[in-house]
């Protein structure tokens, strides 16, 4: 419950050496990917406020560096298993923003044909399996996908995201133990944003870090500043390489913060203002943009152009989605079972 941890963590993290920026194409690609997530989720939030879409969403606002840092260098044939907070992961993995927007509008051409919704977004064709709204349950599933890579002798890997809260689920224990036992190609990525819904991570476990839990399974665990895109990318690169070469899983703990509430209706009353503002100051997109400009990889004008073009993409997606067809009510009866006329 000690929120002083936040500060400790920052000092932990700043002690590490700064990871160099990548070449310009990748740098700009990563920037664009983070901006895409931010603008997509902001748009969704406005659509809710305006009553144009219904249901709920869990925004990853503030956690964009985790998604992009980990996923930027993965292949479409690598799998990615996400959670109730999947939009960032999906976009970073390459799911079509339009198809996701259509899904949010409940349209027939949504990435899950309107059946999944915000918490089940995914597109298997780019390796993003339908996201999982049962906290922790995507972990054993990810292990099974990794086992399939092993059986098929590919060098594809699986990235499995979950939150700090999920690490107290039985599925975390069973899943990571299995992956460790068989040296399976999974990168377990815990986005530690300090809260599971309204409950602080330190009120849910006695240990100080989640990374240290890796030891119970005999695999490496590492804590990283999740708002530092390049630090995330560097750690992910190592973990992914290890997984690809059959070296087994890694547990990465990315220290980050969700700027928005837990879900649409949450005002985050449980979070101290100074904690929120300290993290707001460490907005991962701002931080990365700062470096890009400072280290002269890109100019402000170039980066603004990226932002504008992404905004257009998002606006276009909204228009496209709104003008798309609703599913027929009876479509609800399809896709329960494969085969037999798709009933």
């Amino acid at each position, binding site marked *: 419950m000690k929120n002083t941890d936040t500060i400790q963590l920052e000092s932990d993290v700043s002690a590490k050496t700064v990871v160099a920026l990548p070449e310009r194409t990748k740098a700009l690609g990563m920037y664009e990917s983070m901006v895409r997530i931010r603008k997509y989720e902001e748009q969704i939030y406005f659509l809710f406020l305006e009553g144009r879409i219904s249901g709920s969403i869990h925004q990853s606002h503030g956690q964009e560096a985790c998604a992009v840092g980990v996923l930027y260098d993965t292949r479409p044939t690598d799998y990615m298993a996400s959670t109730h907070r999947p939009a960032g992961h999906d976009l970073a993995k390459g799911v079509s923003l339009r198809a996701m927007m259509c899904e949010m509008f409940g349209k027939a051409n949504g990435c899950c044909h309107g059946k*999944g919704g915000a918490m*089940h977004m995914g597109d298997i064709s780019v390796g993003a399996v339908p996201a999982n709204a*049962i906290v922790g349950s995507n972990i054993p599933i990810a292990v099974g996908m990794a086992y399939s890579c092993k059986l098929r002798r590919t060098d594809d890997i699986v990235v499995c995201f979950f939150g700090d809260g999920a690490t107290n689920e039985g599925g975390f224990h069973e899943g990571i133990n299995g992956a460790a036992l068989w040296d399976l190609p999974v990168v377990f990525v815990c986005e530690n944003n300090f809260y599971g819904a309204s409950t602080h991570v330190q009120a*849910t476990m006695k240990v100080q870090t989640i990374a240290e839990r890796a030891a119970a399974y005999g695999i490496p665990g590492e804590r990283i500043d999740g708002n530092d895109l390049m630090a995330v990318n560097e750690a992910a690169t190592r973990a992914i390489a290890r997984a690809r070469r059959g070296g087994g899983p890694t547990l990465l703990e990315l220290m980050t913060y969700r700027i928005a509430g837990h879900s649409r*209706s949450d005002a985050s*009353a449980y979070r101290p203002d100074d904690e929120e503002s300290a993290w707001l100051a460490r907005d991962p997109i701002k931080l990365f943009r700062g470096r890009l400009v400072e280290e002269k990889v890109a100019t402000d004008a170039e980066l603004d152009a990226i932002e504008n073009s992404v905004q257009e993409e998002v606006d276009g997606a909204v228009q496209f989605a709104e003008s798309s067809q609703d599913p027929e*009510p009876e479509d*609800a009866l399809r896709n329960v079972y494969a085969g037999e006329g798709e009933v």
Partner: protein
Amino acid sequence: MPQMSIVEALNQAIAEEMARDERVFCLGEDVSDANGGYGGAFAVTRGLHGKFGPERVLNTPISEMLIVGMAVGAAMAGMRPIADVQYGDFLFCCMDQLVNQAAKMRYMSGGRVSVPMVMRAPVGATGRGAQHAQSLEGFFTHAPGLKVICPATAYDAKGLLKTAIRDDNPVLVFEHKLLYGGKRTESGALSMVGEVPAEDYTVPFGRGVVRREGKDITIVANLLMMYRAMDAAAELDEDDISCEVIDPRTLAPFDYELVIESLRKTRRLMIVHEDTYSNGWGAQLASYIAEHEIYLLDAPIKRLAAYDVPIPCAPVMEKFVIPSTARIIDAARSLMKM
């Protein structure tokens, strides 16, 4: 009499029982509202932390087996825990603790151990997709050793929950998200506010209630579907079809007698629930009547239920899957022609 929502009624029941009996305590994810916490995903336990402190309003890690296992263990040791896992769908994460442990423990001990615990679980579809939508009563009416209740009014919510807390057996309480009437209203939510006596009262298990009298068709419906049945009945009245609407209130034990009594008059039975058609709780009721009182019937038994699909997210499909007032009306009209 005070008027209140179901959320308020449930909250009062818990608060009063906690004050009355120090063995009663709450546990679950985000059940405490200390320091800006939720006080339950649907605010049912709001304010209890202030009254009873953190030990009796225990915020837990996200660990459903822990939550329910602790409830089982504490109950066996003489406490009266009230467990919460936020959404009914998550009960599958701790099904062993409910079906293999809570339900069987008393029996396996030859009656020497009791498990007086309450498991609260919200059900119903609210546009959040298949893993936050299931109506799963039928899973638990299938597990001897468990009691299963489903209050649909503020009066019943308070009275049945008190009975559940005082009961010496494990009781599952299914609450409907669209009936809570609390702060977190949803599209499709009914703003249910009802009279609740100020004095202490309980509602017994195994006693359904006739929500509306009628003479042509007996409609048995629970939770949200009970209200849709009431709306349908009102409309059908204009057609001169008179429906008797029964809210079973508790599913295990089930008040078969009340249904049978009603059938003596109406001789036609319709069962409506949001639980799935295949093996939903209504299957057992229909089967029971077909076994014991088939001669009372002048027509086939009509069942309306969620279609046999996971719940889709898009509103247009979700609406289609759950029985609507219109579907009930149509079914009643055709039932009268049989």
